[in-house]
């Protein structure tokens, strides 16, 4: 019963879907934290206590203070089997080559990190020339920089450019200074590496180490040391994971849709055959089982094909993800078991889900239909279908309202996505009911033109509403998705930028250029108001979790108050933010002025501070304010992120100057770029899919319409007229789908805009990326026209004299 020709469409759709799912899950499974090269030789690593924050915030662990570090190192080094216990100190140090920051690989965090020379032992770094650093002012650098031992080099540090002399070269990234120098630049320590004696068992050492460290840290061995990977890598990987998860989920969702419409179409085309089976004695259930069986075979075959293609593509995609910044450079593709198993199951499951509704319809085919030639469809839409569609639209509407009123952006975005899924599904289900009126509406302004062809097109599209709907459905889905997601991302980005720019009261802003931040010297040169961010940890026994990380901003109170338009003081006075023990808190911290407030700083020291002022929560772009000097004292590697200046100045080394709207727009530029790439990727996946689905359905439809078209040809139409007819028909159907999809997405976007405007407190413009929308519709249109014109052209090539219907009764 299984016809290869008929199953090709569903097979292709399933195969593409499983390809995406397989590639995405293989990549997902491969994205595991890598043990940093720098710690590769330390079989056991002791890590400082985790920060009490959600794992997707990528805050570094709470460091140990100098005294704790010294105590731990002493006791760990004494353990049997431990050859050496080395505290790993990391600070900001970026060598300047030819007066500019050396950009060997800008994204690699370790390229602008400095360490103590002892750390070289943890990574097994080899000194390829010269000697280790022994005194202040001596440094060992990466030989890839092209410097020789003995030459002077300028290191950009948090204080400013510093003169050093190269004493040696190593075969790895980063700079290494004498251990005493490292201890002053990085007083807080987050990891102690244990180099084991030959033959020592890491697990036994780890157990002993756990006894020493207790609750004051964790002991890691083997792959678990991946937890020590650079936080930026972890973050990048997390973003990649989101991308892959979303791609896999979207691919699954879209595949079910596309395959469902393919099956629906196959069943509609086979009514006669199914009716015949019913007439010779097949029960409804048998017909249904047959349709399921076919779907299972097609799904399994498509799944295996997809798995093979996806497995082959995974390494290529992996490289692409690294290049675009969705995965860290340490990312490698491996072949795990579970993605393979998942992909194998995905094909049949997707197929069976998709065929569900088609099988119901197939089982309802009446035996008499074998005797009818009727190609005109009757009863375009069932009551159950209308009810389902109405329910979905109602749910989508309710979720849209939820989007508009949600408090948090992330929640709102989720609501929006679900809302659109529901609306799209609803619109697809209702499409046959809407097609007729929509065609009438579309033809109203162009009642006259078109002549006979116009008449045939309109009649065809509005009579065969099921066919029209099943071709329009993928277009609807694709366009709705593209418009909504692209519009949402663009509108959100614009809204946040508008909100940010609105808060700042300054002429220009100095930001880092090819460096992670600005040094003190650079800040001093600008004479502006600087923000010096650092991470501090709060451990309030009354409010868990312990070690809650907070972003503290070191500021000069007068300048900050002048530059920050949103600042509203609730209690106390900002001017008292001075000395070495004061802090300004937001209202949500629930503290009053003069209350004590203890924090652990980047150097691991716990300091008791005094609250001098309370401001509203949206006053400050961080969690609390400290005097700039306090931040500097406790975090020698803290770098300034932003300097507000009144007038345009020449930016110092490693900095550039931008105006406020420019700054607001680019503040999250790296992230926005990733998000936009991600968006385009998702749109490309769904658009490609939608277009394939449209082409698929049209190709199948073309086969069934040959007889019809021959009749039209016999009635006197030229070949060109017939081709023009099918082309116009497809174009009209694509247009209908695009209109419906656009309308659905527009509803979603309006509710998102309302939500954003409420949050940002400023009017938000709806930004629609017309190029993306145009591209998506154009792609569908192009494939639709090709898929209908080409087979028609081929099938009409022989003379039209053959029997038009096959059987003359």
């Amino acid at each position, binding site marked *: *019963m299984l*016809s290869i020709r008929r199953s090709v469409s569903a097979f292709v759709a399933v195969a593409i879907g499983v390809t995406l799912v397989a590639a995405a899950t293989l990549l997902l499974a491969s994205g595991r934290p890598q043990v940093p090269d720098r710690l590769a030789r330390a079989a056991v690593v002791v890590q400082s206590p985790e920060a009490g924050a959600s794992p997707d915030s990528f805050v570094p662990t709470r460091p140990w203070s100098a005294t704790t570090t010294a105590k731990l190192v002493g006791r760990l080094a004494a353990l049997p089997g431990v050859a050496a216990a080395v505290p790993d100190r990391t600070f900001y140090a970026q060598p300047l080559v030819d007066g500019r920051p050396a950009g060997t690989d800008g994204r690699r965090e370790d390229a602008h990190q400095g360490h103590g020379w002892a750390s070289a032992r943890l990574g097994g770094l080899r000194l390829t020339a010269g000697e280790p650093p022994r005194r202040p002012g001596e440094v060992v650098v990466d030989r890839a920089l092209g410097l020789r031992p003995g030459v002077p080099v300028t290191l950009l540090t948090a204080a400013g450019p510093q003169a050093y002399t190269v004493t040696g070269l190593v075969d790895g990234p980063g700079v290494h200074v004498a251990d005493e120098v490292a201890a002053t630049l990085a007083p807080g320590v987050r990891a102690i590496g244990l180099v084991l004696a030959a033959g020592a068992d890491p697990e036994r050492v780890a157990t002993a180490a756990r006894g020493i460290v207790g609750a004051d840290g964790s002991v890691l061995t083997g792959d678990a040391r991946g937890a020590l990977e650079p936080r930026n890598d972890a973050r990048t990987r997390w973003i990649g994971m989101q991308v892959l998860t979303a791609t896999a989920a979207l691919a699954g969702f879209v595949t079910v849709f596309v395959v469902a419409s393919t099956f629906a179409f196959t069943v509609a085309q086979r009514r006669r*055959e199914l009716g015949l089976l019913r007439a010779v*004695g097949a029960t409804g259930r048998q017909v249904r089982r047959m349709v399921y069986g076919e779907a299972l075979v097609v799904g399994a075959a498509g799944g295996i094909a997809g798995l093979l293609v996806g497995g082959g593509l995974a390494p290529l995609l992996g490289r692409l993800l690294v290049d675009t910044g969705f995965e860290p450079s340490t990312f490698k593709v491996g072949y795990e078991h579970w993605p393979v198993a998942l992909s194998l199951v995905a094909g049949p499951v997707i197929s069976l889900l998709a065929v569900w509704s088609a099988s119901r319809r197939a089982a309802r085919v009446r*035996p*008499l239909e074998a*005797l009818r030639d009727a190609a005109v469809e009757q009863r375009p839409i069932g009551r159950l279908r209308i009810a389902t569609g109405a329910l979905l639209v109602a749910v989508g509407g309710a979720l849209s309202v939820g989007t508009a009123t949600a408090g948090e952006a992330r929640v709102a975005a989720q609501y929006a996505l679900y809302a659109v899924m529901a609306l799209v599904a609803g619109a697809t289900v209702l499409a046959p009911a809407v097609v007729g009126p929509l065609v009438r509406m579309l033809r109203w302004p162009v009642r006259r033109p078109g002549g006979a062809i116009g008449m045939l097109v309109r009649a065809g599209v509005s009579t065969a509403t099921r066919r029209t709907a099943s071709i329009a459905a993928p277009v609807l889905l694709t366009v709705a998705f593209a418009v909504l997601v692209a519009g949402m991302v663009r509108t959100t980005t614009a809204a946040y930028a508008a909100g940010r720019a609105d808060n700042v009261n300054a002429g220009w802003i100095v930001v880092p250029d090819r460096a992670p931040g600005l040094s003190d010297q650079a800040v001093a040169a600008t004479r502006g108001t600087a923000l010096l961010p650092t991470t501090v940890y709060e451990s309030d026994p009354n409010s868990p979790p312990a070690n809650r990380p907070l972003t503290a901003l070191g500021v000069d109170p007068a300048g900050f108050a002048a530059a920050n338009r949103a600042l509203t003081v609730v209690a106390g006075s900002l001017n008292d933010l001075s000395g070495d023990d004061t802090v300004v808190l937001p209202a949500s911290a629930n503290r009053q002025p003069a209350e004590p407030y203890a924090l652990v700083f980047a150097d691991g020291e716990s300091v008791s501070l005094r609250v001098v002022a309370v401001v509203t929560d949206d006053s400050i772009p961080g969690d609390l304010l400290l005097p700039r000097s306090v931040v500097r004292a406790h975090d020698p590697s803290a770098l300034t992120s932003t300097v507000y200046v009144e007038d345009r100045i020449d930016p110092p080394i490693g900095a550039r100057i931008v105006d406020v709207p420019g700054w607001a727009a680019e503040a999250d530029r790296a992230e926005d770029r990733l998000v936009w790439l991600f968006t385009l990727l998702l749109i490309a996946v769904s658009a490609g899919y939608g277009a394939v689905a449209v082409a698929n359905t049209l190709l199948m439809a073309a086969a069934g319409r040959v007889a019809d078209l021959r009749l039209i040809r016999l009635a006197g139409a030229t070949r060109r007229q017939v081709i023009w007819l099918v082309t116009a028909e497809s174009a009209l159907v694509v247009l209908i789908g695009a209109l419906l999809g656009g309308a659905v997405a527009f509803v979603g976007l309006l509710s998102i805009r309302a939500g954003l405007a409420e949050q940002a407190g400023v009017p938000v413009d709806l930004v629609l990326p017309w190029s993306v929308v145009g591209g998506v519709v154009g792609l569908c249109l192009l494939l639709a026209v090709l898929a209908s014109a080409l087979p028609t052209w081929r099938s009409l090539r022989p003379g039209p004299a053959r029997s038009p219907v096959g*059987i003359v*009764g």
Partner: protein
Amino acid sequence: MTTHTVTLTGLRAVYGTGTRRVTALDGVTTGFASGTFTAVMGPSGSGKSTLLHCAAGLDRPAEGTVTIDGTRLDDLGEDELTRLRRDRIGFVFQAFNLVTTLTTAQNVELPLRLAGRRPPARDVAAALDAVGLADRAGHRPGELSGGEQQRVAVARALITRPAVVFADEPTGALDSAASRQVLRLLRALVDDQGQTVVMVTHDPAAAAYADRVLLLADGRVVDEMDGEITAAVVAARIAEREARPSEHAAAPAGPSC
């Protein structure tokens, strides 16, 4: 006394609603005796196809009952009806209606396979042999002539040893030579195996193979012939009826199914 394999009592069938309402059958009561060959004739829209569909359980009448082999069809649910059709009724269509992806032999055994039985190969071979197509078992419908396809359809209708075979214009799509073959085959079934056959046709020459002819007009049985039936007699009787004005107002054109 003759036993009736199929009994129709007061059959009424109506299509459409309102002004488009068409009465296809208007109270038909008749029976088809076991081991006889009946031809149902009548002009387009006379209700002859509807009669056949109702009698075969493919369609349900608005009123009246159909009894096949002692079973009242109106008592049956959709699945039971399907099973009854599968086991007790054979059907031959005008347009052959073979499944194009199956071979001749597979087409023939399809009804039994649907019933969950696997017929022995020799039964299938015998069925094909009976219609003179023993050498065509492995061919697909596309490789057969129209007459051959129709004979495959007859073999398929017979494979379940049905109580009655209904044939809807079985020669409508065939040339006269192929038509004669198929009709002789049906005749032989009745004569040799005592099969009950009911055939709808509008060809008097085809009706001449039957033992009895029912003439339908406007949904009613208006004439009946049995005994010695020839094409000339049938044609004459039809012409006679058409010349005489109907006692009913002219009904609108019914469904041409």
